[in-house]
């Protein structure tokens, strides 16, 4: 029973922590991209592509946490 409670507490907590981390990362990445676009609007296309790739890598971490959370939910 205790394990179940711990699992029930841990899954949302872990997901939230992962979201905090990748939120900060995405904020940094988009911040940089926006500034770069503002300075060089003519390079906006390339910057955007790079930003999307980076954002995908950052966001993948939350997705891993989400998948682990689904696994945990299945055990709950």
């Amino acid at each position, binding site marked *: 029973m205790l394990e179940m409670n711990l699992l029930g507490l841990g899954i949302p907590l872990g997901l939230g922590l992962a979201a905090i981390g990748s939120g900060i990362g995405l904020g940094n990445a988009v911040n940089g991209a926006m500034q770069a676009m503002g300075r060089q609007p003519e390079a906006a*296309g390339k910057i955007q*592509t790079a930003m*999307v*790739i980076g954002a*995908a890598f950052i*966001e*993948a971490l939350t*997705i*891993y946490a*989400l*998948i682990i959370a*689904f*696994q945990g*939910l*299945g055990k*709950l």
Partner: protein
Amino acid sequence: MGAIAGSAIELPGRRWASHGGRMARSFEQPEVNPEFQQRILTGSALGNTGSAQGNTGGELGPEFLGRVRMASLVLGGLVTAVILLRMGTLAAGAFGVGLGLSILNLFLLEFVARRVLRPEPLWGPPVYAALAVKLPLLLGGSAAALYWLHLSSLWFGLGFASVLVVTLLKVIGRMVTAPKGGSRSGGFIEPKLAPRRVARPGVMKFLVAMLIAGPVVYMLASGAWMAGDLSERAGLSVKPTVALAEEPHGGATEHAAPAEGHTAPAEGHTAPAQAHPAAGGSHAAPAANHGDAGHGEGGHAEGVHAPEFPNWIVLANYLFPDASWAHFLHTWETPLFSLPVVLFLCIIAIMASRNPKMVPGPLQNVVEIAVESFTNFVEGMLGPQGRQFVPFLGTLFFYIWFSNLEGLLPLMKSPTSVLNTTVALAVCVFFYVQYTGLTKLGPGKFLMHLAGDPKDAIGWAMVPLLLPLHIIGEFAKPMSLSLRLFGNVFGEDVLLAVFGMLILIPLGSFQFGLPLHLPFIFLALLLSSIQALVFTLLSTLYFSQMLPHEEHEGAHH
């Protein structure tokens, strides 16, 4: 002059103000009883019903009421049929009586309006009779239905309200689609001059269509029976199919065993729900509540399922729990949902590319734009030699995109919300990338690439460390690709389902959800497109690392 001065006054006063304008023009305008007009307009400031000349139905008048009546009849009949099939005759009867009473009321109103709102109002005995009958009919009919016939008040009320809902939706639709010139300067003043239908730009039409179709579609989508409940009854568990954690499902025998186990509690649950029509009368509502409370607890005891909207295969398994073809469908669920996307893409491609024209038609135009822009995108990343990868990457993109979007359709499911599909796609990418590396770079350079392209003594010293890292990195690519896509699409579907089932209204033995997931639909539309793009973008990036040019080597890990 008079018209302009008149219309400057606030809108409800228009009919008074427009007297001057009407005099100034030569054509005849009817005197409209303002009270009746007000009553029929249901308080809409837009309405200029009274223009009796050419009531085209584009305005809020008797024609409009007639259309509301027809729409209510058709829709109400359909809903009654559904209720008859699902909830039994008692509920359907109550619903039908409510609907009929409401439509009768509407018909009387329309009858009066048709006679009164015309150039020469026909105030005669029929009109007075209709007016006199209206209120007693309404009250007496309701009282008789509820107190003497002991019909379920919930269903009766729903039936009665359905007509009002249709009216409301139609009024909103009218207000949104009303021609601009008519309502601003007062179509009442110059009905001949204001064009009936102003051609709007295509975007506006699209928005209007979405505004009307959106709620209907998503009511349908979320009005589907609660997924957990339904799947439990069908004997299917909706646990997330994370293959990493579970042993792979074996043959049909293994599959059938949990299904048998699930059916027994499901039957137990149906018993109280079935008892509710028998209780009848005013006891119907509490009985329904009890039945559903039992269901909810049962669902919790089973364990937490990731909620998903039921698709048609789950429905088939629910309706025919013992049929072997239903289980066959369930076994082949993902390929069956992938098939429509594949067929759609094939048919579009064939239709657009066979018999190409110098002056392209609409379909050829769209496909050409898509192919051209995608080619530009890939060539921008890979250079001119990237052209050979366009078919593969383009197919990936469009297949993933349409698969993601398929999950938003009612009774459908994204094939990409299953890990098997995304792993298959990612493995394709993996092998193609390695093959490209081996052929374009050559085996020696390929190995050097994996070793981190050592150039000096420090580089060579790092090789024992970098080679395993790079090899692991190569294998991590398909894993991250597939898990990202699967997690996004599956998480998005679960998010929609969670919000769609946030507030459940118990109706009979079923639960209906409010469409609270509507705002997240737009998020899901965005995410579906972005994830398809990201998958393709990353694949392109992996190809670019395997192509022999030096700029991209630095970005590699």
